[in-house]
Each structure stands twice: as structure tokens, then as C-alpha cells.
């Protein structure tokens, strides 16, 4: 059935493996800034026209009752040699976009939740979501100028995070800093999924 990608084509074209990492957090927390600082190009924007499948309306009976929403996402690309391409997606942080998250989280290597200490509650939905889904994530505390500095343990406590979830300070504007956040995430995802050294995520309700 996949004649379009037949052996003829497959033998000729060796595509790299695409990997997805999500960058979540509240509005203005620095998602696009982080995507931009570590990507090889300035952030691009893509729009998804999505159907809200949250309503329990049957596919055939309720077409007119379904809501479609256009969701814009900023994303960036990091080429890793010619074997892998890393895509970073800034994920709409609001809870009402949960259905976008489902689509985006599928197959994601992991997620960075950016926390802004001036509005810490804004990242609760993201933390909740990734915990429930079992997607490995780290919390990156974006150090805005003028914001009070908190102890990482205070933030861990405020977010009610397990001891196994890495919490790091970062400056999303700085490439090195964003890079370190990604390294922490990939290491954590590897530990969680492959060696099980991190605690198992709580099961979905």
C-alpha cells in the first residue's frame, strides 16, 4: 500500500530521524525566546487547524457541533549531523489547548516546562499534563531581571514536584543556558525511559 515510498525510493533517500521536544509554560514565560536562542534559525510559526475532540459528539452526527480552533505554535530546528534533526515546539500553555498537547506530545522525547517565578501558577497546567501523561520533563526557571530569586527547593515545593524531576535555573535568552536545559532534559528522559532510575510517572487517572 505504501507504493509511494517504495523500495526504489527508500534505497535512494536516507532521511534523518526527526525528534520532537516540547517547550511549555505560561504566556510570556519565555518559550519562544528559548526556542529561538538555541535553534539554528529564528523561530518559525506553524498553524494547526484542530478539531476539539473533547466533546463526546459522534463523528457523523455532530459535525456542525464540533469546534475547530487555529493554534499557532513557534518552533525551531537543531540539526545534529545528518542523522538526527531536533525540533523544538513552543506549546500553547493554556489548559484549554489540551487537545493540541495530546497531538504534540505523541512521540515527543520530552518537555521543558518554563517557570516564571512572578507567575508560578501559570506553569501548573503544563506540569500536571506531563506528569499525568508520563512524558519526561524538566522545569526550567527563567531568571527574569527584577524577579525575586527563589531557592530551587522552594520552587520544587511550590510545584509539588517529585524529587526525581530536575529543576534548573536558566536564562532563556542565552544559547548556552538553553542548551544546558535541553541536555538536562535529554539525560533525564534517557534515565527515565531506559534505566528506570527516575521514579515511574503516576498513572493517568
Amino acid at each position, binding site marked *: 500500500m505504501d507504493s509511494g515510498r517504495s523500495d526504489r525510493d*527508500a534505497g535512494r*533517500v536516507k532521511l534523518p530521524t*526527526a525528534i*520532537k521536544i516540547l517547550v511549555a509554560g505560561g504566556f510570556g514565560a519565555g518559550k519562544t525566546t528559548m526556542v529561538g536562542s538555541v535553534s539554528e534559525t529564528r523561530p518559525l510559526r*506553524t498553524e*494547526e*487547524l484542530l478539531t476539539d475532540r473533547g466533546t463526546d459528539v459522534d463523528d457523523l452526527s455532530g459535525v456542525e457541533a464540533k469546534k475547530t480552533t487555529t493554534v499557532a505554535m513557534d518552533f525551531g*530546528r537543531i540539526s545534529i549531523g545528518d542523522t538526527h534533526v531536533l525540533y523544538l515546539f513552543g506549546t500553547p500553555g493554556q489548559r484549554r489547548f489540551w487537545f493540541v498537547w495530546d497531538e504534540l506530545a505523541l512521540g515527543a*522525547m520530552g518537555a521543558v516546562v518554563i517557570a516564571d517565578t512572578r507567575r508560578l501558577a501559570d506553569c501548573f497546567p503544563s506540569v500536571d499534563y506531563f506528569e499525568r501523561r508520563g512524558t519526561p520533563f524538566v522545569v526550567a526557571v527563567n531568571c527574569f531581571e527584577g524577579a525575586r530569586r527563589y531557592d530551587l527547593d522552594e520552587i520544587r515545593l511550590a510545584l509539588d514536584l517529585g524529587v526525581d524531576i530536575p529543576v534548573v535555573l536558566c536564562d532563556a535568552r542565552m544559547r548556552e543556558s538553553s542548551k544546558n536545559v535541553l541536555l538536562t532534559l535529554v539525560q533525564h528522559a534517557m534515565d527515565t525511559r*531506559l534505566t528506570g532510575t527516575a521514579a515511574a510517572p503516576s498513572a493517568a487517572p
Partner: protein
Amino acid sequence: MTSLSDDPAEEQWLDDEAGRIVRPYVMTRGRTQPSRGQIDLITLVVTTNPVTSGEVGLGPEHHTIVRLCERPLSVAEIAASLDLPAGTVRVLLGDLVDRGLVAIQEPAQEINVLDLETYKAVLNGLRTL
């Protein structure tokens, strides 16, 4: 011809240089699903046959995709370049795959993120950035 849109800005027909003259689903002839399987935002696309001049039934967007994907690009990047919703691009890609003009890389399923070599490659790649 008249537009179904209530938005006056959408009623204007503009030329190619000036911008979008048809709504996205006109390009897909009303289809909202691609002719084949899962096409994720990070599905990579590469042109396998750059000759599209003889193909009947392809629109300008199809030709643009074939030209863009001479180096592998993700669906998200194609959508951003064409300034079209990703859903529209998926349908157009289905057409191109059917004609053997592009090849796509199915996105890694959740299970594939269990591959140790992938993590090592990404960690090493990030360190050398």
C-alpha cells in the same frame, strides 16, 4: 466569483505576488485528511522526483513543496514556508506521495524513544553546539 467569507479582507482576489487568493481547503479540493496515514508535524519530507512539469492536477503549492523539499524538511517547516495550516500541507503531501514525487519519513512512534543510541546521538550533538 464570490467568496463565502464574511471577512471583507478575504473577499479580495489578489495576485500570486500579493498573497493568498484562495482559502486553504480550496487547494485541497475540500479534503481535510491526507490520502495516507499519519503525517505528523515533524514528519520529514524529501523530493524524490523533482520533475513535476508533466503532472496533471497539481497546483502551484504542490510544485513549491517539491522544490522546497530538495533538502529534507518537516511538515511544520513546509507549512511555515507556504504560510498554510499544517492540515492543508498534509493533504497536499498525500497527493505528492501518491505520485511518487516525494518520500516521507513516518514519525517515530512512542516506542522508538526507547532507543539508547538516539539519546546518545542527541546528547553528543547538543554538547557540540
